[in-house]
């Protein structure tokens, strides 16, 4: 799983390896992430998600081998 910007800073890492199992969704994997990094809980309400570089919903299934990314509110430009 990829973390960026403020979320990466709070977690102290930009990359987390979490095994995905059949039936996992963005939300279920996020729950496991928060067990390891409870300090990310405050960021959850503003997060968006991407599966394989495509914006995704919390309820979307995450296929095995997919790249999941936590996307804080963007501020490019």
């Amino acid at each position: 799983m990829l973390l960026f910007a403020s979320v990466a800073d709070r977690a102290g890492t930009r990359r987390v390896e979490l095994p995905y199992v059949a039936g996992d969704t963005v939300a279920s994997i996020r729950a496991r992430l928060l067990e390891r990094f409870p300090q990310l809980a405050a960021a959850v309400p503003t997060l968006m998600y991407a599966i394989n570089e495509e914006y995704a919903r919390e309820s979307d299934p995450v296929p095995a081998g997919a790249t999941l990314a936590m996307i804080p509110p963007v501020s490019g430009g």
Partner: protein
Amino acid sequence: MLIRVTPDELDTAEAIQAAGSPAAGAINVFLGVVRDNNLGRRVQYLEYDAYPSMAEKVMRELAVEAKERFALEDCAVLHRTGRLEIGEASLLIAVSCGHRAASFEAGHWLVNEIKKKVPVWKKEVWEDGEAWVEGPESLGIQQAPASMR
């Protein structure tokens, strides 16, 4: 069509060249540059983080949509990452089309969409602290002054 996320300085001439076309009568170029202030605070420099592969994908989708929507001849969208000093360009958009009005509309539409959708983040660094900007106009999550960490 030129789409690129890069730590290197953005080259306006290259973007104009890439966006040009013999059928174009108008080229509009937008540069987002690092300003020495934001919301009343002096900014020393910015640090840009990005999800480069996804950022390029979203930029390309937006460029394709702009080309269709505004009948562009061609366009270029580049975003820089890493540390940027005051006056340096973080975003560079060049669009070409037959007539001028659409070139302004397309450029403006592209900046707005890019700021909403492209996974890139800026951190403002001040004399006494720093913050990730979350959302286009927010002051971000204030962190303790650097001297206290």
